[in-house]
């Protein structure tokens, strides 16, 4: 039942356009690049702050240029996709039990959004105080 008697059909390069779920998966994978971009952007900001007022003003000019704003808008959309898709996958990967009973998936997801809100609130407070 193997060798020349069977026929293996190669997968198309465009397999990820065949189904919506495959497409969302590939976009989720792609979103990692934009997460990396945000990390880089943040590091550049920190470096500019460290170098003093002139460097910071330069950074703001650069960050306000149309190209960077456009990149950041796209990046933000991908970050949202990244967050939402990974949060919604977490219950599948975590077998969380409290007192022997499995924690319902929606509670794990809600917990993550609560955590995100908490951390975002803290950062907001830190920056604006």
């Amino acid at each position, binding site marked *: 039942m193997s060798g020349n008697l*069977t*026929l*293996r*059909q190669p997968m198309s390069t465009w397999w990820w356009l*065949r189904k919506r779920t495959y497409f969302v*998966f590939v976009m989720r994978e792609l979103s990692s690049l934009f997460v990396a971009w945000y990390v880089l952007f943040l590091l550049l900001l920190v470096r500019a702050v460290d170098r003093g007022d002139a460097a910071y003003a330069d950074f703001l000019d650069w960050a306000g240029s149309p190209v960077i704003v456009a990149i950041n808008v796209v990046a933000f959309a991908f970050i949202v996709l990244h967050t939402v898709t990974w949060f919604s*996958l977490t219950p*599948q990967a975590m077998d969380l039990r409290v007192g*022997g009973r499995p924690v319902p998936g929606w509670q794990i997801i809600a917990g993550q959004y609560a955590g995100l809100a908490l951390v975002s609130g803290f950062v907001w407070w830190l920056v604006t105080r």
Partner: protein
Amino acid sequence: MASTITLSVTRWRPDRSMPPGPQEYEVPLRKEWTVLDGLNHIKNEIDQTLAFRWSCRMGICGSCGMNVNGEPRLTCGAFLSDYAPGPIRVEPLANFPIARDLIVDMSDFMEKLPRVKPWVIRDDDVTEIDGEYLQTPEELDAYKQFSMCINCMLCYAACPVYGLDPDFVGPAAIALAERYDLDSRDHGARERLDVLIEHEGVWGCTFVGECTRVCPKHVDPAGAIQRYKLKAAQQTVKAFLLPRAMR
């Protein structure tokens, strides 16, 4: 409702040099008929050369898996009326070599399955037990979901990772490894981890999640694989941090 529906069925014979191609058949569109009933109608009444696998026709044996309109399905559970007015594309399961018409060659899975040791492994030397190993309902619940797998191969047909890299151990085999890992009678987790911690084991999976979506038995292989990754990662950290005796 129309009285017939068209099935566009992939035909391929290993003894002819023609590439696989669709052949259309008109079958009666009856409310209670499934795609498998349609194929059996073709085989019995129209063209007896058509080859496909089936057995129980009630979603238990896992033999009649095919790609129906591009989606891996048990054809005994896919109703013709759900696809009306048609035509319905019936193809062999994706990602496997075709043996003939709608029949795929599953030897790859048969070779991989024993590698993950899907049986109860004991670390005592007991060959014959006095009575039985008792389990509580909770202990049964821990692995029951993963024991529902019927090896129908729909998850492999849905998995792009397996399609792109046939060396990947794959969803069903890993879910079955998890089934024995979670069994309170089993002591073989360490042995299975040695196999699955390899790159072609759990780390090949990128969590597309399609295996779980197409599983007719709600086994959730994607969940099993991610939990395995967690176990593998914990084991690596333990091996790094703890002295040998405490692992």
